[in-house]
């Protein structure tokens, strides 16, 4: 598949948002807020940056991705479906007992999922292990992760950050989705983590700050990460939690709540309008 850019990339992200919100609505549970905030980064990874082959999801030389903030699985599943790992229709079975599309990513049963995650704080460590394994086995694949800004309150994240710097993992790149909200409210109230950039810099990471909804900035950051060979890169992306659904935006109440039929109708109309706009321009 050819790499997608600009509007084509944006279209995938918005289609993924619609699929994710629909899946959460049908499941009557799930996490829309963070799924919507990281959808653009996921689209950039899977439709531009990563060396992958959906027909061969276990290809040893594929780039790896770890959704450390595993509760945003609906966005990942939607992107994987759009990329061709499995039919998009299966998203309608999200969280259903008949489906393998569990509440959090399950590598044993979902094609394209490189690591089972969901317990916050653990994913980045596994990404470090994947990146170390690349060096150990002489493979040139890269490893990517997306962390939540609430998630980085977990101490294990900083253990992993320290270790990635120790081994100078230039083949590792982690996004931090700075949407500013977590279940109990504003991250700055629940447990302030600022200055996140200085923390990563102090741990000897290369740090890039971007707008997480600007594809030019996302792709430029990924290119910069690829060209940073001597240390891991953190892409600190400022995002809007609930991005694209007016009533969800910047509202912690939509962290882990499913829209009812009426709410979904509004979300669907808004997301479809955005998709139509992109398709027509």
């Amino acid at each position: 598949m050819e790499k997608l850019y600009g509007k084509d990339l944006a279209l995938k992200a918005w289609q993924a948002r619609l699929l994710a919100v629909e899946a959460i609505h049908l499941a009557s549970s799930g996490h829309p807020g963070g799924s919507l905030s990281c959808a653009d980064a996921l689209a950039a990874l899977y439709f531009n940056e990563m060396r992958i082959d959906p027909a061969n999801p276990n290809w040893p030389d594929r780039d790896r991705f770890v959704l450390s903030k595993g509760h945003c699985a609906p966005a990942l599943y939607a992107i994987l479906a759009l990329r061709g790992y499995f039919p998009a229709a299966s998203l309608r079975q999200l969280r259903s007992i008949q489906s393998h599309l569990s509440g959090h990513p399950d590598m044993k049963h979902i094609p394209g999922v490189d690591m089972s995650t969901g317990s916050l704080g653990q994913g980045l460590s596994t990404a470090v292990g994947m990146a170390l394994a690349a060096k150990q086995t002489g493979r040139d694949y890269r490893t990517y992760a997306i962390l939540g800004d609430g998630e980085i309150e977990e101490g294990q994240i900083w253990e992993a950050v320290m270790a990635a710097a120790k081994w100078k993992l230039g083949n590792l790149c982690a996004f931090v989705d700075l949407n500013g909200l977590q279940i109990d409210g504003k991250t700055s109230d629940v447990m302030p983590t600022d200055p996140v950039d200085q923390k990563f810099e102090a741990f000897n990471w290369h740090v890039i700050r971007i707008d997480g909804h600007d594809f030019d900035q996302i792709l430029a950051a990924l290119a910069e990460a690829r060209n940073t060979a001597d240390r891991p890169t953190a892409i600190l992306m400022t995002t809007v939690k609930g991005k694209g659904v007016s009533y969800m935006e910047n509202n912690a109440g939509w962290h882990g709540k499913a829209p009812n039929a009426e709410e979904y109708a509004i979300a669907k109309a808004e997301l479809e309008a955005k998709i139509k706009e992109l398709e027509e321009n």
Partner: protein
Amino acid sequence: MAGKIATRAAFGKALVELAEKYPELVVLDADLAKATQSKDFAAAYPDRFYDCGIAESNMVGIAAGMATAGLKPFACTFAIFAAGRAYEQVRNSVGYPHLNVKIVGSHGGISVGEDGATHQCTEDLALMRQIPGMTVVNPCDGNEMRLAVEALLNQNGPAYLRLIRPVTDVFTDELPGYRFELGKGVTVADGSDVTIAATGMMVGMARKARELLAADGISARVLDIHTIKPLDEDLILNAAFETGAIVTSEEASVLGGLGGAVAELISSKCPVPVIRHGVEDTFGRSGTANAVLEYFGLTPENLADKCREAVRLKQG
């Protein structure tokens, strides 16, 4: 082999010995390589050794990530940190995705000795056997440890391997017909009145208890249950049927470990008296290994008493 060696030392030697044959083997430690004895491997294969610092949770996650790429990581630290601190990482990042990671808990049990209660892990066997798909191995001597390490290198899936600190006698290499297979217990000595199902260092004590009992005219069978999960159900059920009473013995809590596993099995499939010998529901304390073992009743004499009690129970 014979002689004496700590299982942790045998573990360290086994890693080095097997490194060439198993190129996927990598070893991680959390600043305890001198204690877990992974230091031997670190010295011989520095490019396959990863010191993760004092951060066990992260070490377990790194090992999981490595396993997804086909490596065979052994992640080593003290039992209390491997099974205790990093329990949830072992459960969610290793157990749930059923990754080929070997969690190595050294200084298991109370024979850690002088470091005392904070470092004496009596819960590891119970905790690790709770995780679906986890293999739990607790070798009884240095010979068995070496065989266990190689067996685990050939087993695809998560496993917990317990090592202990003190030096103990090596005897399995001289047992007639002895062979090591994961999930298969070993009949160390036959007997007809009672069975001691022991694991780890308590297998050696069970042999001594058997001699004490013989003096009283009680014939005790001794089983070496090196694999607590999957449990060798046939061997234990046969012993229950043939001897009519079981005493489990482990250097671990009497709650939920080997004793728990055997009681769960026997109560539903061949109900006979089961007495659990181990550390009662309490924290450890400082002392020399031998003093601590004696303080908590982990002696051949006490084990023999438990067997006498089991025989009385059986007789009604």
